[in-house]
């Protein structure tokens, strides 16, 4: 039994795990990746590192200091670290500890687990969930062609695998994240023909609330502006990709100027590319907190997030949440939240936690949240984005559900809300369980019914009975462990 299980070893989880362990708690740290750092500090396999691997990595020294503390705490047994593993189910008896079911992220990672299977099920008195997030996507005609990647995917391939995903790229969507992706690709020798930004940008720069709450961010923006100029990357604002063209892979994009709502105001222009990197901000990973019934709210950017108090406590007793899952805000904020949550938990469990430090962290979290809100307001999703779709545009890539299928489910079958749309037309019912198309499906449900997207649209697409698809063997093993032999054949379905 561990005092606390921390899920995720990105900025929030890493900070939470080391802070909790140093405060005297017994910690287990579970992470999908083979090495710590999360998406933000993703890096090449450390055993084959090269000195130039970290060029362009922000806050790299923050990471290496956290990693050194992790290594020291592992050596003394204070942190039990499980890389390459995914939590697929969390359950809890009333007022009892949390039980986590864990599965290997890849078949190769299975080999690294204990032979007796003791790492398959873990128990902990408290949880700090730091599941992070991933690129938010809006469908566009042709986005299912090979050569179209998420912006984060193109960057992950570079940072994690030293591999540029193409030779001639366009980076498109909205938000400041498009800039490091574009400059990273350019540094790797890719010709970046344009950054296509749907909004008119740098509004946050002028907003007193935004710039004042994070002065360092203004300097960062200037650095990227200089890098864009050095690599001669055109920055085209109030512009969107209207279609990705190609037969069996991306060959070109059609772009057009748009108004504030995303409606075209100019003629289409065709640009030849073999790599299209798309990003519309980020979607927090909420499956684990939702599985435990944590209360949610809608953030300034329209994402569903976990509601937490000023100690990172969710509505569920013993469940702390930190990082992007409480609102997309970047790595520095995530580190503050991870530390704060860990110290709050330590205090609650009777360990020493410096009140002055906790006050400082609470202040930093408040300022970080203010800045994040200013950014979200500057880079909204264009209101009329569903207008870009044609009846044959795929919305759900897994189940191959097109916009026309959703329109028919709405008009002919009367699907008014996201839940009914999902049941009738099956978007979000495939491999990724709605991670990629969830926001779009929720938005389309609202759009077709002529209302704004709300929590009730988002939640059905974010809830998953199992956090990741698992092989049948893992489910069977769970049934064997938890069911008396005579009852084992009466069922075994989990998460219903």
């Amino acid at each position, binding site marked *: 039994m561990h005092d606390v299980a921390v899920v995720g070893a990105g900025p929030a989880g890493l900070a939470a795990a080391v802070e909790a362990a140093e405060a005297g708690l017994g910690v287990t740290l579970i992470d*999908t990746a*083979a090495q710590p750092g999360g*998406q933000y500090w*993703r890096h*090449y*396999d450390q*055993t*084959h590192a090269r000195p130039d691997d970290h060029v362009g990595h922000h806050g790299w020294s923050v990471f290496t200091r956290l990693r050194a503390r992790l290594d020291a705490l592992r050596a003394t047994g204070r942190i039990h670290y499980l890389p390459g593993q995914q939590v697929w189910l969390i359950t809890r008896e009333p007022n009892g500890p949390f039980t986590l079911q864990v599965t290997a*992220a*890849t*078949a*190769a990672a299975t080999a690294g687990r204990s032979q007796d299977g003791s790492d398959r099920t873990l128990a902990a008195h408290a949880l700090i969930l730091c599941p992070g997030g*991933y*690129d938010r996507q809006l469908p566009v005609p042709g986005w*299912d*062609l*090979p*050569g*179209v*990647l*998420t912006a*984060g*995917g*193109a960057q*992950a*391939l570079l940072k*994690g*695998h*030293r*591999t540029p*995903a193409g030779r001639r790229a366009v980076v498109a969507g909205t938000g400041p994240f498009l800039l490091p992706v574009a400059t990273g690709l350019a540094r790797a020798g890719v010709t970046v023909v344009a950054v296509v930004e749907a909004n008119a940008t740098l509004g946050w720069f002028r907003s007193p609330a935004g710039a004042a709450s994070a002065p360092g961010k203004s300097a960062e923006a200037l650095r990227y502006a200089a890098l864009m100029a050095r690599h001669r990357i055109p920055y085209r604002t109030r512009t969107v990709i209207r279609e990705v063209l190609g037969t*069996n*892979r991306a060959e070109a994009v059609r772009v057009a100027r748009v108004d504030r709502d995303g409606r075209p105001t100019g003629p289409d222009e065709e640009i030849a590319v073999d790599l299209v990197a798309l990003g519309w901000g980020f979607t927090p990973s909420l499956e684990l907190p939702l599985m435990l019934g944590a209360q949610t709210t809608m953030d300034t950017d329209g994402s569903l997030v976990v509601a937490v108090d000023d100690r990172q406590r969710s509505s569920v007793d013993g469940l702390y949440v930190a990082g992007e899952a409480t609102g997309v805000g970047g790595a520095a904020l995530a580190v503050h939240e991870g530390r704060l949550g860990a110290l709050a938990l330590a205090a609650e469990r009777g360990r020493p936690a410096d009140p002055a430090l906790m006050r400082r962290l609470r202040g930093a979290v408040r300022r970080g949240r203010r800045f994040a809100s200013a950014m979200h307001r500057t880079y909204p999703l264009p209101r009329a984005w569903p207008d870009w779709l044609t009846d044959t545009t795929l919305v759900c*890539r*897994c*189940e*191959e559900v097109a916009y026309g299928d959703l329109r028919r489910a709405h008009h002919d079958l009367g699907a008014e809300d996201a*839940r009914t749309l*999902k*049941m009738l037309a099956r978007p979000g*019912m*495939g*491999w*990724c*369980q709605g*991670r*990629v198309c969830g926001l779009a499906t929720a938005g389309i449900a609202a759009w077709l019914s002529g209302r704004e997207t709300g929590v009730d649209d988002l939640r*059905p697409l974010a*809830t*998953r*009975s*199992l956090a990741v*698809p*698992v*092989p*049948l063997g893992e*489910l069977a093993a769970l049934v064997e462990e938890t069911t008396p032999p005579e009852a084992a054949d009466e069922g075994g379905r989990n*998460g*219903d």
Partner: protein
Amino acid sequence: MTHQMTFRGTTVAAEPGQSVAAALIAAGVTDWRTTGKGGRPRGLFCGIGICFDCLITVDGIPDQRACLVAAADGMRLGADAEPGAALQDACGPGDDDA
């Protein structure tokens, strides 16, 4: 030392530490499965294990995410079997808990 893997009868090289997906893309391969309904080509999309677009059979084990599997010497990539069969039987798709 560079790893050598096989994919559809060809040799694909990989640097130690690269993923299977990165090695395929570096070799100019941008798709390695077709969709069940439309028969459309798919390769890497999210690159971080979220989207399951990049599923591939590795050494006979189906439905591995090419973006997460580390390349290794002698690896056999791809298979005759319909991609997606193993997990389809388990629990990913058809998850009706809306």
